[in-house]
């Protein structure tokens, strides 16, 4: 059998080679100096079914880096946005993200890492000692042990409870919960089901529907039979459009009011649904509930103007500026950049410990709402507290900050207006 033996040689040789490569590589004690531009990784699906997230998260990156670069950069470095396609598949994401970590010079901070892939990408970026602000909603990260992890948006369960609070506040008592069979909706459901009875409302019917079906007529008939006064909804634009079209046909043209997530505050959702059920319903009867932000603050205006100023983002700026996760990403970039200045280095393993200091309340600190003001205050030798588009982040020991919630409505041009707020502590109580 001599002939067969050499065929085995290749895996064995591989293993030996690996042991040889394994030696070498260690880190010094003083921060290494980086030269050239810094790269900010936008780790998100740019292809596949969730490709929309890529666009949604590139926009705040462009807004933040435009402002940072206009004010002279971070410690003299310009900052680029680098798209890293995680494809929405947790297995395919791993080589793509590690490749980006290996091939990207000065890869010092990251945003994105949303729910589809967070399970596998969060440990990778953390292990590379790159601080990151994630927009995932997974309940699994409510408690975690990743030192480079930060989240300024609520978990999906809290979002679900916020839907219930808003629906009951509007006087609706009998909710039909219809969620698409997908990752975010699945996370909303426990919080929503827990909160609704505690608030004195009831869940008339609760259906999980598949995406992109030819018709939802039977599901619609079941919902109509439950006589709901509000539809608590979460689904992709296409599924929403088909469902509402069926509903309209079967209910003599009458649609119930809808409470859904600010995740749907996108041009795709607005266009797909408006084209099918008309702009009147979309602007008057749909509430979109999500992370709160105050749209009157200077911080918000700076953010919105930056989105409007960049040719690549100006078209989606009106809608995008009111969506929670991108705003959280924008705040995160500013916080990380200011932490770099405080640490006097752009290297993640060194500036990471300064991130909490950037946002922590302290007496005598200058409150800043954008990067340029923060940079100036630090240069003048003052201590700072960053209060951004999403307000004051209050990180717990796991670096999560759920914040407050608000409700929005679409305007006829696809932009959105805030119409009310929901207390974050009330939402967390309902979950407890």
């Amino acid at each position: 059998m001599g002939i067969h033996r050499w065929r085995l040689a290749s895996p064995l040789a591989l293993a030996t080679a690996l042991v040889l490569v394994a030696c070498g590589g260690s880190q010094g004690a003083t921060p290494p100096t980086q030269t050239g531009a810094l790269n900010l990784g936008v780790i998100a699906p740019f292809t596949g079914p969730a490709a929309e997230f890529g666009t949604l998260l590139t926009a705040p990156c462009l807004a933040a880096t435009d402002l940072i670069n206009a004010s002279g950069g971070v410690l003299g470095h310009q900052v680029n946005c680098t798209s890293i396609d995680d494809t929405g598949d947790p297995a395919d994401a791993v080589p793509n993200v590690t490749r980006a970590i290996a091939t990207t010079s000065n890869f010092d901070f990251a945003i994105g890492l949303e729910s589809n892939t967070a399970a596998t990408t969060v440990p990778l970026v953390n292990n590379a000692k790159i601080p990151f602000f994630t927009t995932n909603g997974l309940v699994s990260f409510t408690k975690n042990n990743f030192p480079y992890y930060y989240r300024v948006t609520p978990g999906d369960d809290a979002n679900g409870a916020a839907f219930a609070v808003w629906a009951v506040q509007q006087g609706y008592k009998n909710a039909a919960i219809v969620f698409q069979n997908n990752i975010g909706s699945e996370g909303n459901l426990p919080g929503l089901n827990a909160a609704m009875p505690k608030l004195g409302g009831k869940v008339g019917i609760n259906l999980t529907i598949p995406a992109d079906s030819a018709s939802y007529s039977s599901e619609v008939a079941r919902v109509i039979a439950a006589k709901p006064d509000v539809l608590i909804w979460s689904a992709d634009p296409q599924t929403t459009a088909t469902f509402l079209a069926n509903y309209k046909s079967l209910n003599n043209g009458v649609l119930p009011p809808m409470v859904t997530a600010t995740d749907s505050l996108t041009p795709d959702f607005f266009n797909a649904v408006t084209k099918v059920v008309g702009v009147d319903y979309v602007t008057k009867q749909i509430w979109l509930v999500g992370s709160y932000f105050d749209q009157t603050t200077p911080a918000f205006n700076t953010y919105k103007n930056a989105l409007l100023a960049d040719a690549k983002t100006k078209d989606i700026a009106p809608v995008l500026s009111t969506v929670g996760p991108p705003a959280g990403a924008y705040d995160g970039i500013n916080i990380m950049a200011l932490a770099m200045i405080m640490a006097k280095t752009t290297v993640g393993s060194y500036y990471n410990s300064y991130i909490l200091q950037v946002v922590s309340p302290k007496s005598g600190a200058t409150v800043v709402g954008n990067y340029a003001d923060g940079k100036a205050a630090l240069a003048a030798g003052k201590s700072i507290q960053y209060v951004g588009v999403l307000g004051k982040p209050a990180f717990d020991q796991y670096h999560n900050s759920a914040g407050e919630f608000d409700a929005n409505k679409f305007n006829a041009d696809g932009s959105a207006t805030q119409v009310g707020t929901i207390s974050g502590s009330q939402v967390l109580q309902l979950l407890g």
Partner: protein
Amino acid sequence: MQLLIEAIGFGIASGAVIALGAVGFSVQFGMSNVLNITYGALMTLGAYIGLFLIDRGISPWAALAIAGVVVGAASVAFNRGLLAPLVRRGTRAFAIVIVTVSAGVVLQYVIVVFAGPDAKSYGEQSGQTFHLLGMVLTASEVTIVVLAAALMLGLHLLLTRTTLGRAMRATASNRILAQSCGIATDRISDIAWMLSGMLCGAAGVALAITTVSFDFSLGAVFLIPMIAAAVLGGIGQPYGAMVGGLVVGVASELAAAFTNPAYREVVAFGILIVMLLVRPHGLFGAAWATRRLMA
């Protein structure tokens, strides 16, 4: 009870669309003996051609006809250019199926590259609502049901009452024998691919009208219910595929009405697997098409 009757009505409406696609699939399979998975992506192509036309002000029903013709031509080219030569070289059935799966993936992603991955819509076309024996149907659904029935009848008459139809059946059943009887089998085969491609394109537009909103996965999603309907009805049987489509449509709606709606698609999957295992020649299997369903 109310829900039961309503669900049957919805099932007839969605079944008509499935039937439209299933009949084309069935004719193609019966004629060429090739399990053509690219059919799904060609349906998607039909829907996007429809979108292109409707966005330029052409009426949906005219767009349906034009998309049918274009996809019909594309089908003929696909068969002539790729499948027929492979079959002639004696490529095995599983390799051909892999070629059609691959070609479907390529076509689907080419559509994505040009049209983008986001949801598209023709706008709402459903029109007035009709109440019929406790069932509720929209105008566009009624039109599609009537259209499907008319096409089915026409196809049945074509296959059974005309010389062309007899030639098609002869070619499907035994190509070499047909050739020796003086039938121009290549031309007959082209006609079959054209016809089935037209049904495929029309089904794509009809699907896009009923789903109201669609994306590049449209055809891939509906291919399995269509194959299930075609196999249920018996390959090569227009009436069978029509009945198969209705059964699959009604069964899916009943599942959605009375169980967890997330399982609505599993019904079509289940029907297909059970049929393949128990009765692969279908409920109405035609003698001329069934003999080669076994290895």
